[in-house]
């Protein structure tokens, strides 16, 4: 969660070039596909993520003529397209979260669990967190996860979702309150931090 975008925000020129030289669009893929896939995989699991990521870049490629070149960084655009595609899988997303809540075994991470041996502390809260995420309205979940997992700023998340920054802020605040409640913790310092980071 940071206010500034990573460097290399030169996507606009790659997209502009791709209008006459389509192969230039591969650069956009190389820059953003890995992070986007990790983001979508965390939400939907590996197989659905492959579909969503492939479709995201195909859609983006077809819409490149309409891209606003004033936006140097394409992430809000790409994550916005991906968010629309993720919604096709919302029932699976919720089903996986509910399974993780119920059994403690998360279908999304199962293929990767051998690779990690340091998720113990998160795992203790995992089932409850999964339940809380499943219960969120999907617009709230989208906003929260674009920021928390996607690394978008509030204004970028607003662009991605096509809503005002204020809307993103209030959705995330409400989502966080809900998570806090479900996790059974009250931590007054949080509110202070939130203002500082995202004010």
């Amino acid at each position, binding site marked *: 969660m940071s206010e500034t975008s990573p460097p290399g925000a030169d996507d606009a020129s790659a997209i502009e070039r791709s209008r006459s030289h389509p192969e230039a669009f591969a650069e956009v*893929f190389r820059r953003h596909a*890995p*992070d986007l896939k990790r983001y979508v995989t965390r939400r939907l699991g590996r197989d659905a993520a492959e579909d969503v*990521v*492939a479709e995201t870049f195909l859609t983006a490629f077809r819409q490149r003529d309409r891209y606003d070149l004033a936006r140097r960084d394409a992430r809000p655009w790409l994550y916005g397209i991906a968010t629309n595609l993720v919604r096709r899988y919302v029932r699976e997303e919720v089903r996986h979260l509910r399974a993780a809540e119920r059994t403690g075994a*998360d279908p999304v991470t199962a293929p990767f669990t051998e690779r990690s041996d340091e998720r113990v502390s998160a795992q203790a809260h995992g089932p409850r967190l999964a339940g809380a995420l499943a219960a969120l309205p999907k617009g709230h979940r989208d906003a929260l996860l674009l920021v928390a997992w996607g690394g978008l700023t509030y204004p970028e998340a607003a662009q991605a979702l096509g809503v005002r920054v204020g809307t993103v802020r209030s959705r995330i605040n409400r989502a966080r309150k809900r998570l806090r409640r479900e996790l059974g913790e009250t931590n007054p310092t949080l509110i202070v931090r939130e203002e500082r980071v995202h004010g």
Partner: protein
Amino acid sequence: MDEMTVLDRFRSEVPRPGPDDLRAEEARLMAAISGAEPAPARRGRIGGPGRVRGRLAIGLAGGLAAAAMAAGTVVASHDFAERKPDQVTRIMPVAASEVLTRAADNAAKFPELHPKPGQYLVFESQTMNPAELNTAKGHSRYLERSIRKVWLPVEGDATQGVIEGKRLSPKPYPGWPIPPEAYQTEPSNGPEKLADFDNRVEYLRNDYAYTSRLPTDPQKMYEHLYTRLGTGPKADIEAWQRVGGLLTEAYMPAAQRAALFRAAAAIPGVTTIDDAVDAAGRRGIAAAKVIGGSRHEYIFDRRTYRYLGEREVVTDAAEAQAPVGSVLTSTALLKVSVADRAPQAEPHK
């Protein structure tokens, strides 16, 4: 620990994927970029259960007007493509086929071709395929045989390929007399365009530009073979046929070939056939899987484990409508080479 830390750690074991894990997505984008984006997989099946190679094999039916229409048609199997991507983690089983495992061990022992962009791979093979004939006099069947030489671009689909064929004497389809028409077809045809259209989805491509970028890790290759397939016997059958798609009139570097054989060895239900014969009469040892009423074999040289060809042998007379043991389809890969150019295709008649 606050809720954002918990959230941050939740599913944090999901790794940032490397290039290998983005290959499918990249390939689809690249296809769109090159203007050759395949039809969406969910369109459903076109042209029945035809495998690519089966359709290609019919391509030599020069004199048969009906078959000639189908001749140029390359149709990929879409049978399973409309399924939802399965949520199952696909773990490659331990390899069961020793033939394929040995073929993998030996894959690097052959001289390697290094085709370059713009060049062509040239495949010379002998084939036998069932042919059907419907005329005013009635319905007949026979096995047509031919030698075919196919030029395929290093990068590009079958529509950019060229074929030249020479007809061999027909054989009877078990239980059917050879119709006179089977002898009256042109003795040779081409060079002509290999295919009028090629609707294969991206992950069924088998041109060198694609096969040379396939995974060299057997587990990944196994996943590639099962792209968009579910689990269970039907998926295993389709995966086995996809192996054929990568062996028939296709070439890949030794590392990919070894991975392909190891992945194929792990497909459930693969057995060993001690004595198999390819379309050119060369004897070998085969890895096989029963599909419907027949056994689909990939044949290898018994000593060097070089890939020789494939054949289908009837195992269920009722289902295949031919006696058990009869061979209805076979091929022999005679030679693969590289050429700078393909012959000029004759315009379609």
